[in-house]
C-alpha cells in the first residue's frame, strides 16, 4: 500500500542557500512518525516546503499526498487536500476573532472540496466541545486570534484548529517548545486524540520529551538536509543519550 | 587613538568650553565683504585653474538670486553677509613642504588639541590601535596632511581640496557638485562660491583604506566665516571610514559655518562618515556661538552602495543640517545615527533625508535629541520611496529627552510612500530624566552630575555604539560636558 505522504529526493533552498538535499521519506496513514535532528538541519524547512511557504524554493524531487503532487498546489489548496501545519511560532492576527478565523478556514476548505458549508450553530457546538477537551476557555475564542495568548495557549489553539479542520496529514513543528510539563500533557492528549487510521502525523522535535507522550511508530534523524537514519521508538532514546554528534559526519 | 584620548583629557581639565583659546598668529585676510572681487581673491590665493574660478563665479551669481530659507524652527537675527571676512589664512610661504615649515604657533595649537601632526607620535601610540591620517585645517587653509605617502602607496588620495583641484582636476570636475548641485540651497550655493578648503578623498576600486581618515577644522580668525568643502569618492568595492572634528574659540559675535560635504559611493563600496561637532555654542545668555548651516549628502550611486552618517552635535549656537542619502543603486543602504544636544540658548533643527529610488533599498534612522536650559531641539526628517523603489524599507526611531522646564523638543517627520511594497516604520517618544532613576543612582553613591551622565549615556547608547570606538569615548565626554549644570 502506498504511503499517504511520499517524499522522493527532495532538495530545497531558502535565500540562495540549500537546506534540504535529497530528502526521502514515506509516512503511511494511521502512523505517527517523528523527525528529530540538530538545529539548522532542515526540520522546519521541511514543514514549510510541504506547506508551500513563499521564499522556499524546491530545486528537485517530489512530494505527494495520497498519490497527488503536493508541490504543484497553492498553500490553501494543500490545506483543502488535508495538510495541516501546527506552527512553531503561531501568529497573532489582531482584529480577527479566533472563531471567525476558524470558521472562515473550515468553510473555505469545505467549499474547495465541494462540500456544504457548516452552519453557525453546528460550528459553535463543534468548537465548544473541542475547546473543552483541550481545556481552552471558550470566551478566549471570541478575542483576536492568539493576541495576548501565552505560549502554551497558542500551542493549544493550534491543536484546537487541527481538531476542527480534521486534516489527513498533520505536521507538528516543535509543538512542545516553550511548554511546561502540564501544558505539554494537554497538548499531547489532544494530539493522541487525533490518531486515526486515515491520518498521518509527522512530529518534528528536537527533544525526545514529547515522544514519551506521543509515542511514534517510526523515528527519523534529519541531518545535513536529508534523512540519515531511521528506526523504531528506541532510536529517540538513543539520540537523547548520545546526542546528534555521530550524524555530523553523515551530513556532508 | 592617542590623539583623541589626549583631546579628551585636555577637555576634562579645562572649564566649560575647553577649546575657547585664541591663537595669536600672523594671518592675512581677504577684504571684508562679499563681491565678485572677493571670489577672485580667494581663487587667486589658491592658485586655481580658470574652470574653478568660473564655477565659483557662476555659484555667486546664482546665490545673489536666492533667498535665505526661514522654514526651520530657528530664530536668529538677520545675517549681514557683507560684514565678514571670507578668507583668513595663516601667513605662509608657498605652502608648507614639511612640518618644519609650519608656523610653530599653529603646531602648538594642534598639539594643545592633541592632533598628532608628528607622525612618529602617532606611530608610537598604543600598539594595535588603528592609526589615522589627519588633514588639519586652520580657518580657510589646510595646514598639513599626514600619512599622504602611505596612503598613496595604497592608491588612496587624501589631500586638501585645494590641492586636489590642482593635482587631480579630472576627478574633481567629475564629481564636484554632482551630489549637491550648486543651487541646491542658499547655503550650499554660498559655499560653492566662497569655499575655502576641506578634504578630498578618493579610494580606488577594491581598496579598503588602510587607516581612518580625519579632518580637524578649527575656526580661529574673528569675524570670519568658514566654508569648507569636502568631497569623498569610494570607487567600486572600496571602503573608507572618515571622521570630522571641529572646534572654535569663544567670541562674542556669531560666526558663520556653511559647509558642504559630498559623498559618492559606487558599486559594492562603503563610506562611514562620523562627525563629533563641538563648535562654540555661545554663552549662557546666547551671545556669540557658531551658526552651523551645513549641507551633507551621500549618493549611493550604484548597486549595493552603503553609507552611514554618525553625528554627535553638541556645539553651535544654531544648527541647520540634514545629512542625507540618495539611495539610487539597487540594494543600496543608508544609515543615520545622531545625538543632538542643545543647552542654554542653543537651537538645533537637524535630521536626515532618505530618498529611496532603487529597488530593495534600506535605511535606518536613530535620532536622540537632548534639550536642556532654554534651548530648542528639532528633528526634521524625510523618508520617501519613489514609485520604482520596490521593496524599500525604513526604520526610524526618534527619541527626545527633556531636561528642565524651559526647553523644547520637537519632531517633524515627513513620510512619503509611493508604491505598494515599501515598508516604513517610524516611532517617536518624548521623555525626561526619571526622578526615580536619578534618586536610585544617587542613593548608590553617585553625585547628581554622575547620575545624570549615567542616564544620558543609557539614552544615547544606540548611537554611541555606531561611532569608531575611540571617538565614542570622546563623544561620551563631550555629551557630559555639554550637559554640565543642566540639572538642579
Amino acid at each position, binding site marked *: 500500500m502506498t504511503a499517504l505522504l511520499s517524499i522522493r529526493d527532495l532538495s530545497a533552498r531558502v535565500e540562495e542557500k540549500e537546506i534540504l538535499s535529497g530528502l526521502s521519506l514515506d509516512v503511511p496513514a494511521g502512523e505517527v512518525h517523528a523527525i528529530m535532528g540538530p538545529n539548522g538541519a532542515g526540520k522546519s524547512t521541511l514543514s514549510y516546503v510541504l506547506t508551500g511557504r*513563499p521564499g522556499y524554493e524546491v530545486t528537485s524531487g517530489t512530494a505527494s499526498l495520497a498519490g497527488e503532487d503536493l508541490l504543484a498546489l497553492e498553500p490553501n489548496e*494543500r490545506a483543502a487536500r488535508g495538510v495541516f501545519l501546527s506552527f512553531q511560532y503561531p501568529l497573532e492576527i489582531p482584529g*480577527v476573532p479566533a472563531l471567525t478565523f476558524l470558521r472562515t478556514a473550515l468553510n473555505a476548505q469545505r467549499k474547495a472540496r465541494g462540500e456544504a458549508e457548516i452552519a453557525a450553530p453546528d460550528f459553535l457546538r463543534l468548537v465548544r466541545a473541542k475547546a473543552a477537551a483541550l481545556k481552552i476557555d471558550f470566551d478566549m475564542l471570541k478575542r483576536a486570534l492568539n493576541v495576548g495568548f501565552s505560549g502554551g495557549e497558542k500551542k493549544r489553539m493550534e491543536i484546537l484548529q487541527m481538531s476542527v479542520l480534521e486534516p489527513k496529514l498533520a505536521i507538528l513543528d516543535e509543538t512542545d517548545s516553550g511548554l511546561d510539563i502540564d501544558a505539554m500533557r494537554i497538548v499531547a492528549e489532544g494530539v493522541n486524540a487525533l490518531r486515526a487510521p486515515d491520518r498521518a502525523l509527522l512530529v518534528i522535535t528536537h527533544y525526545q520529551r514529547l515522544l514519551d507522550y506521543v509515542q511514534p511508530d517510526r523515528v527519523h534523524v534529519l541531518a545535513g538536509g536529508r534523512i540519515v537514519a531511521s528506526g523504531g521508538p528506541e532510536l529517540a532514546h538513543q539520540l537523547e543519550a548520545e546526542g546528534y554528534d555521530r550524524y555530523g559526519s553523515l551530513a556532508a | 587613538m592617542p590623539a583623541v584620548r589626549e583631546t579628551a583629557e585636555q577637555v576634562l581639565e579645562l572649564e566649560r568650553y575647553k577649546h575657547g583659546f585664541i591663537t595669536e598668529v600672523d594671518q592675512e585676510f581677504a577684504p571684508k565683504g562679499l563681491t565678485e572681487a572677493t571670489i577672485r581673491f580667494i581663487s587667486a590665493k589658491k592658485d586655481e585653474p580658470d574652470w574653478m574660478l568660473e564655477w565659483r563665479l557662476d555659484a555667486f551669481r546664482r546665490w545673489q538670486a536666492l533667498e535665505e530659507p526661514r522654514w526651520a524652527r530657528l530664530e536668529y537675527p538677520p545675517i549681514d553677509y557683507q560684514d565678514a571676512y571670507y578668507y583668513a589664512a595663516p601667513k605662509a610661504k608657498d605652502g608648507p613642504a614639511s612640518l618644519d615649515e609650519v608656523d610653530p604657533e599653529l603646531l602648538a595649537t594642534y598639539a594643545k588639541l592633541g592632533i598628532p601632526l608628528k607622525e612618529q607620535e602617532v606611530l608610537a601610540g598604543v600598539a594595535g590601535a588603528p592609526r589615522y591620517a589627519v588633514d588639519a585645517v586652520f580657518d580657510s587653509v589646510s595646514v598639513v596632511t599626514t600619512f599622504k605617502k602611505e596612503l598613496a602607496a595604497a592608491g588612496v588620495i587624501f589631500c586638501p581640496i585645494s590641492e586636489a583641484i590642482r593635482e587631480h582636476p579630472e576627478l574633481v570636475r567629475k564629481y564636484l557638485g554632482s551630489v549637491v548641485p550648486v543651487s541646491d540651497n542658499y547655503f550650499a550655493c554660498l559655499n560653492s562660491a566662497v569655499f575655502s578648503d576641506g578634504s578630498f578623498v578618493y579610494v580606488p576600486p577594491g581598496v579598503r583604506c588602510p587607516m581612518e581618515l580625519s579632518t580637524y577644522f578649527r575656526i580661529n580668525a574673528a569675524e570670519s566665516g568658514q566654508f569648507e568643502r569636502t568631497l569623498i569618492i569610494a570607487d567600486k568595492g572600496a571602503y573608507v571610514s572618515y571622521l570630522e572634528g571641529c572646534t572654535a574659540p569663544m567670541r562674542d559675535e556669531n560666526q558663520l559655518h556653511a559647509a558642504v560635504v559630498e559623498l559618492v559611493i559606487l558599486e559594492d563600496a562603503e563610506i562611514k562618515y562620523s562627525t563629533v561637532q563641538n563648535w562654540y555654542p555661545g554663552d549662557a545668555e546666547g551671545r556669540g556661538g557658531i551658526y552651523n548651516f551645513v549641507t551633507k549628502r551621500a549618493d549611493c550611486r550604484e548597486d549595493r552602495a552603503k553609507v552611514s552618517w554618525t553625528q554627535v552635535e553638541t556645539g553651535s549656537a544654531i544648527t541647520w543640517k540634514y545629512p542625507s542619502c540618495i539611495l539610487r543603486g539597487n540594494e543600496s543602504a543608508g544609515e543615520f545615527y545622531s545625538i543632538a544636544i542643545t543647552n542654554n540658548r542653543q537651537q538645533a533643527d537637524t535630521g536626515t533625508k532618505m530618498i529611496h529610488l532603487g529597488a530593495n533599498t534600506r535605511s535606518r534612522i536613530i535620532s536622540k535629541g537632548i534639550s536642556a536650559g532654554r534651548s530648542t531641539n528639532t528633528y526634521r526628517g524625510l523618508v520617501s520611496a519613489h514609485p520604482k523603489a520596490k521593496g524599500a524599507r525604513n526604520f526610524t526611531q526618534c527619541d527626545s529627552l527633556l531636561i528642565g522646564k524651559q526647553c523644547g523638543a520637537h519632531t517633524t517627520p515627513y513620510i*512619503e510612500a509611493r508604491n505598494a511594497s515599501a515598508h*516604513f516604520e517610524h516611532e517617536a517618544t518624548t521623555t525626561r530624566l526619571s526622578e526615580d532613576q536619578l534618586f536610585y543612582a544617587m542613593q548608590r553613591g553617585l553625585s547628581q552630575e554622575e547620575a545624570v551622565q549615567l542616564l544620558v549615556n543609557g539614552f544615547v547608547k544606540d548611537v554611541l555604539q555606531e561611532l569608531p570606538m575611540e571617538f565614542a569615548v570622546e563623544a561620551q565626554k563631550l555629551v557630559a560636558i555639554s550637559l554640565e549644570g543642566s540639572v538642579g
Partner: protein
Amino acid sequence: MSLARAIETGDVGLLPSRRDEDWRWSDLRGLIRVAPPASPEWVEPLAPGPFSGADAEEILVVNGRGPDLIVVGPGEKRAIALRLIAAPNAGSHLARLAIEVGEGGELTLLESHEGAGQDYLTASDMTIELGAGAQAERIVLAAESESGVAVSIAKVQLAAGARFEQMVLASGARRERIETVVEHPGAGAFVRLDGVYLLNERRHSDITTVVTHNGVDGITDQLIKGVVQDQARGVFQGRILVAKGADQTDARMGHHALILSDRAEVDAKPELEIWADDVACAHGNTVGALDEDALFYAAQRGIPPDEARALLIQAFVGEAVDRVRHEGAREVARAWVAQRLGASL
C-alpha cells in the same frame, strides 16, 4: 492665503497651495483655474442620508444654506444627524456653523458630507465649544463626489473635564481636506481623534489634526488607519503641541496605512512640538503592505489569497472602527467599511 475669502470672492489666487507648509500635499491653487460660480439654492427633495436610520434629529445644510447655530443646553442630551450637502447644482459655497454644548451636556453629532454635484468647491467652517464636563462624539462620514473639492475645518474648544471624541470616515474626492484643530485645556479633559480613509481610483483625502495642550493633566489619543489603492493618495498630518507648563499631558498618536497598488501614495507628517518635560508623548507611523506571515498562516489554514487579504484588511481597519462609541454610528461605519472594501477588492 485664505480659503474662505477665496470662495467668497472667487479669487483663486487666495487658495492654499504647495507653498503653504500645511498644504504641501493638498494643493488647491494649482488645481483650480477658475472658481465655480456661487451655488444656487436647491429646492428639490433629497435622498435619505447615511445616518437616516439612527435615532437623531436631522439638520440640513444644503449648498451652504441652513442653520448656523446648534445649541445643546446644560445637562441636555441630543443626537443630531447633520447633513452638509453639495446638491447636483452645487458650485462654490462656504457654510459656517457654531455648535455649543453647555455644561454637562451630551451631543452625538452624526455628520455626513454628501456630494451629489460635480466639480464643486465647498468649505465648511465649524466651531465646536464644550462646556465643563460636557461630552461630544462627532462621527464624520465624508461621501464627496469624485470631481469635487471639499474642505472641512472644525475648531474645537474644550472646558475642564470635557470629553471630545471624533471619527472621520473618508472616501476622498478630487481634493478632500478634513481638518480638526483642538484647544485642549488639560484639566482632566479627554480628546480622541480617530480616522479611517479608504481610497481608490484617483481620489485624494487629507486628514489634518492639531491638538494644543495648554494646561496640566490632559489626554489625547489618536488612531488613524488608511487603505489606498489604484492611483489614490492619502495624507495624514497630525500635530500635537504641548505648551510650556502643560505637565502630565498624555498624548499618543498612531497612523498606519496600507498601500495596495504601485501607483497609490501615502504621505504622512506626525509632528510633536513639546515644551513641557513631565509628559508622556509618543507617535507611531507605519506604511506598508499586509503582513506576509499572516497571509501564509491564513493560506495554510485553507483560506484563499483574496479572502485572506480581505479578512486582514477588514481587521486592520476594524481596530479603529471598534472605537466608535455610539452603537448606531458604529454599525453605519462598519457597513461603510464593508461596502468600500468590497467595492474595490
